[in-house]
C-alpha cells in the first residue's frame, strides 16, 4: 500500500537514480576501450615455464657462490 511518505520518497529516489545511472555514452566508451585491449591468452606451456623459472630462482638463491668453495691461495692466512 502506498503511503504519503512513499509518495514523497519515490519521485525523489527516481530522480536520484536517474542522476546516477550509467548513461549509454559512458557505457559505449567503456565497452570500446575494453575491446581494444588485447586478450592476453596464456601459452599452453605457461605452468611448466613458470615452474622452470621458480626452480632456477630457488637454485640461484640457495647455491653458495663459487668463490666460497675455492681453496684459499697459498699463504692467504699468513700474518
Amino acid at each position: 500500500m502506498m503511503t504519503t511518505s512513499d509518495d514523497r520518497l519515490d519521485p525523489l529516489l527516481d530522480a536520484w537514480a536517474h542522476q546516477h545511472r550509467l548513461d549509454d555514452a559512458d557505457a559505449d566508451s567503456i565497452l570500446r576501450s575494453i575491446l581494444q585491449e588485447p586478450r592476453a591468452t596464456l601459452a599452453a606451456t605457461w605452468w611448466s615455464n613458470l615452474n622452470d623459472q621458480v626452480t632456477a630462482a630457488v637454485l640461484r638463491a640457495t647455491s653458495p657462490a663459487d668463490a666460497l668453495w675455492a681453496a684459499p691461495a697459498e699463504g692467504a692466512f699468513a700474518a
Partner: protein
Amino acid sequence: MAGDDQARFTQLFDEHRQGVHAFLLARTSDAEVSRDLLQETFLRLWRHIDEVAEMGDGQRRGWIYTVARNLVIDRYRTEASRREAVTRVGNEVARIAGGQVDTVDRMADRDDLEHLEAEIARLPEDQRVVLTMVAVAEMTSQQVGEALDLPPGTVRYKLHQARQRLADSMERR
C-alpha cells in the same frame, strides 16, 4: 573466434553493466571511481571470456560480482583512502546539486535531493547496496540476491529497512 568472443562479451556487458555499476557506486560512493572499477571488472571478464561464457547464469553473476567486490576491497584497503572517498562524496553531491540536468529540477526539489543523497550515503552499507541496485540498476530482488549471494527475502527486507530510514528522514525535515 575473435568475432564470437566480442559478441559474447558485448552481450554480457549489456546484461550486467548497470547492476555492476550500481553495486560499485553503492560501495564506493564515488561516480568516477565506480566507472573506473566497472571498466576494470569487465576488462577481467574480457580476459576470461572463454571460461565465464561457459558458466551458468547464477555462477557467472557470482563471478562478476566477486571480481567487482575484490576490486573495491583492493581500492579501499586503507581507511585513509576511504576517508578521502567520503570527502569526494560531498563534492559529488555539490556537483549534482549544482545540477546541469533540467529534468531533475523539474522532478524534485533540489534541497530534497541533496538531503536524500546525504541520507543514502549514511545508510548502512548493506542497505545502501541493495537500494542502489534496485533503484539505479532496476534489478529485481532475485537478481540482487544472486549477485550478493543473499536470499531474495533478505534483499526485500534490507530494501524495506533502507526505504523506511529514508522516509523517516524525509518526514523529520
